[in-house]
C-alpha cells in the first residue's frame, strides 16, 4: 500500500484516485477513481455506495455491525436481480421480449459477490446470462429492460437485446452469444492493460460448459504465458443447456483444469455471497498486484431452464429442491437478521425499492420508442 502511494501516478485517471483513508494492513486494492456515473445511479436506486476498492483484504467483510450497510446493500443487489429477472420472464411470456433470454435466477450470490470486488475502471466480459452482471455493474435497470424490449432507449439502442448488453463507460465489455467467445476477448483486454502498464483487472465470466471449448484452453494458455491480469470466473451451474457437467467435461471439477497451464484454480460455494466475495477478492489482488491470472469456480445452480425456451425437464425435482433450499436471497437475509444487522422493516423497504425500480423499468421500456427504420444501419460500424 505504502509503496503504491509513493509511486508517481502513471496516468491521469490514476491521479484522480485518492489514497484510502484507513489503509488496511496488507492492502486491499486502491481506491477507485471518482467516476460519478455508476455511483450516482446506485444512490438513485437506494442501494448505497460501492465500497472503495472492493472489500479490502480477505475476510474483512463479515456479519458484524460495521458492515451493516454494506451487507444490506449487497442483499439489495441480489433482490433487485431476482425481481428484475422475474419481470423479464413475465415480459418474455407476454411477448414483449423477443429472441432468447437467459436468467440469473439462483446465481445471484455468485453474481453480486464476484462483481462487487471490482473497481469501476476494471473490465468485465460476460456471457449471454448477463442481466444481473449489468445490474451490479450499475447500468440502470430501465436501460437494460428497454434493451430487452428492443427499444431505442436501451443500453445499446435496442440493437443487441438480452445477450449483448454493453456499456463502454462502465467497462462492461458485453454479453456474448457465442459460448466461450468472451474468453479470447478478455485476453485481448488483458494484453492492452499490460501494454499500457495499467493496474487494472479483467473479469471474464463464463459457464462450465464453455470450459470444454477450445477457446478456453487457448485463452488460459495465453493468459498465463503473458501474465495477463485476468480473473476467470466460471459460474458452474452444473448444466450446459441440458448436459450435466459430468457428461461433457472429463474433469467435472473445473477448478482443476487450469493446472494444464500452471495456473491456480479454486472452487467456492457460489450460493454463499461472502465466500464468493472473499475468493474473488484474492483472485483480483493476484491479478492486479502480481499479474497472475487465476480461475475461480463458483458452484451454483440456475433455478430456471437454460433459457426461457427450456423447460428444464432433464433435472430431477429432488435435485432442484436441494438447491432451492439454499436460495441465496433467503439464506443471506436469515444470516443478516440472526446477526441483528437487518430488521424486517428494513428488508421490506429494500424489497419495495427493488420492486419499484423494476416496475419503473418495465413502464419505461414499454413507453419507449422503437428504433427508427431509417436508423437501421446506425451503430453497425464505429
Amino acid at each position, binding site marked *: 500500500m505504502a509503496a503504491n502511494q509513493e509511486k508517481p501516478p502513471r496516468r491521469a485517471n490514476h491521479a484522480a484516485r485518492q489514497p484510502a483513508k484507513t489503509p488496511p494492513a496488507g492492502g486491499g486494492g486502491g481506491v477507485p477513481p471518482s467516476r460519478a456515473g455508476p455511483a450516482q445511479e446506485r444512490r438513485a436506486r437506494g442501494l448505497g455506495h460501492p465500497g472503495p476498492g472492493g472489500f479490502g483484504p480477505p475476510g474483512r467483510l463479515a456479519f458484524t455491525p460495521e458492515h451493516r450497510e454494506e451487507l444490506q446493500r449487497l442483499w439489495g443487489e441480489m433482490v433487485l436481480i431476482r425481481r428484475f429477472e422475474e419481470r423479464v420472464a413475465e415480459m418474455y411470456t407476454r411477448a414483449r421480449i423477443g429472441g432468447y433470454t437467459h436468467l440469473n435466477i439462483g446465481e445471484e450470490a455468485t453474481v453480486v459477490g464476484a462483481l462487487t470486488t471490482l473497481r469501476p475502471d476494471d473490465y468485465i466480459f460476460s456471457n449471454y446470462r448477463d442481466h444481473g452482471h449489468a445490474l451490479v455493474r450499475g447500468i440502470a435497470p430501465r436501460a437494460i429492460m428497454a434493451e430487452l424490449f428492443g427499444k431505442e432507449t436501451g443500453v445499446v439502442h435496442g440493437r443487441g437485446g438480452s445477450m449483448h448488453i454493453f456499456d463502454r463507460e462502465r467497462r462492461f465489455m458485453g454479453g456474448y452469444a457465442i459460448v466461450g467467445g468472451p474468453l479470447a476477448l478478455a485476453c485481448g483486454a488483458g494484453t492492452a492493460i499490460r501494454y499500457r502498464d495499467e493496474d487494472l483487472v479483467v473479469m471474464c465470466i463464463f459457464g462450465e460448459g464453455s470450459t470444454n471449448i477450445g*477457446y478456453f*484452453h*487457448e485463452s488460459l494458455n495465453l493468459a498465463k504465458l503473458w501474465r495477463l491480469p485476468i480473473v476467470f470466473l466460471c459460474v458452474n451451474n452444473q448444466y450446459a443447456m441440458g448436459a450435466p457437467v459430468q457428461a461433457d*467435461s*472429463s474433469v467435472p471439477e473445473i477448478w*482443476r483444469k487450469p493446472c*494444464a*497451464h*500452471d*495456473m491456480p484454480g479454486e472452487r467456492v460455494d457460489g450460493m454463499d455471497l461472502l465466500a464468493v466475495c472473499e475468493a474473488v477478492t484474492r483472485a483480483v489482488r493476484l491479478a492486479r498486484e502480481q499479474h497472475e491470472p487465476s480461475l475461480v469456480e463458483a458452484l451454483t445452480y440456475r433455478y430456471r431452464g437454460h433459457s426461457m425456451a427450456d423447460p428444464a425437464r432433464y433435472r430431477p425435482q429432488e435435485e432442484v429442491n436441494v438447491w432451492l433450499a439454499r436460495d441465496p436471497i433467503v439464506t443471506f437475509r436469515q444470516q443478516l437478521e440472526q446477526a441483528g444487522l437487518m430488521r424486517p422493516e428494513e428488508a421490506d423497504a429494500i424489497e419495495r425499492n427493488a420492486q419499484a425500480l423494476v416496475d419503473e423499468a418495465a413502464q419505461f421500456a414499454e413507453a419507449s420508442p422503437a428504433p427508427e427504420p431509417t436508423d437501421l444501419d446506425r451503430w453497425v460500424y464505429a
Partner: protein
Amino acid sequence: MGSMTEPAAVKTRRTPRPLDVDLGGAELRAICETMVLSRALDERMWLLNRQGRAHFTISCQGHEAAQVGTAAALRRGEDITLPYYRDLGVVLWMGMTPREVMLSFFARADDPNSGGRQMPNHWGHAGLRIISGSSPVGTQIPHAAGVALAAKIRHEPTVTAVYFGEGTTSEGDFHEGLNFAAIHRLPVIFVCENNGYAISVPRHKQMATATVAERAAAYGMPGIAVDGTDVLAVYRVMRRAVDRARSGQGPTLIDTRVHRFTPHSSDDDDRVYRPPEEVESARQQDPVEKFRRTLVQHDLLTTAQDHELRERVAAIVEDAVVFAEQSPLPAAADLTRHVFAESGRR
C-alpha cells in the same frame, strides 16, 4: 586408485542391461531398418528439393525413435493412425512403401496419399488405415476422438494413435479432442513429438507448463513423458498405453522429447532463431545411431547385417526415387477427382 572395483565396472559395461521388451531380434532389426530407411528417404528428399527437383519437404530427422517406437506397438492393418506431417517413420512402419512415399513427394498420379493433390508429407492411405490430415495443425486430434468413438460403438478392438507436435497442444482442437476422449474413455493414444520448437517459437514462449505430459491432468488421463530418442523406452510406454486403450481403460497422452535436426521445413531457415551448436549437440543424441549401437552391443546386429541393411536401404531409396520421378503426373482431365467420394469406392 579404485583398482579393486575397476574390473567389475568394466564387466557391467561389457554385459549390457537386458533390453526388457517383448520383441525378438528380427523385430528389433525391423524397427532399426525402418528408422534407417526413414532417415535415408528424408535426407534424399532434402537433396531433391535443394536440386530443384521437388517443391517442398518437411522432416522426420531426429524424430525416428518416437515415430517407429510408437508405431511398433500398434497392430498393422487393424489399428488406425492419424499422423502429422513429420511422421514418415510411422507410415513406413504401418506399411506404406518407399515408392508410395516418393510418389507423394513428387505429386504423381499414382500417389495413394492423395493422387498428388495434397502437399508432400500429408499422409493418408485407406488400405493401411492411415487417415489423411489437413495442413492447419491439430485438426486430426478431434478426428481421432471420433474415429475411436466409432470403434467403441462397433465393439471393435481397434486402437487409434494420433500424432502432433507440442505447438499443437496450445490449440483449442487439442483441448476439445482430449476432453471428449477422456469423457467417453475412448481407445485413443495422443502422441506428442515434442521437439521444443513450434516452427520458430521455442516451447517456453508458447506454453506455460514445462511439459506437455502435465496437461493430461486437466482431462483426468495419464500423461507420460519419455525420452523420444530412445526407441525402446518409447515402445514400452506406448505398449502400456495401447494395452490400456484396447482393454477399455481409456486414452493416454504420451510426451516424447525429441530433437528436430532440420529447419521446420525446406522453406525455413533455423539459423535465424537457434544457434547451430544447439543442433550439433542434439545430434549427439541421434536416435538412429543410438539404437544401432544398442543392437550391436546386444549382438542383435552383426557388422555384416549392419552393412547389408545399409546397402539394402540405399538401393530401396534409389529405386523409389527413380520409380516415382518416371511416374506420370495426374491428368488434367482428372482435376476434380478425389475431391468428393466416388460411389462404389471406399
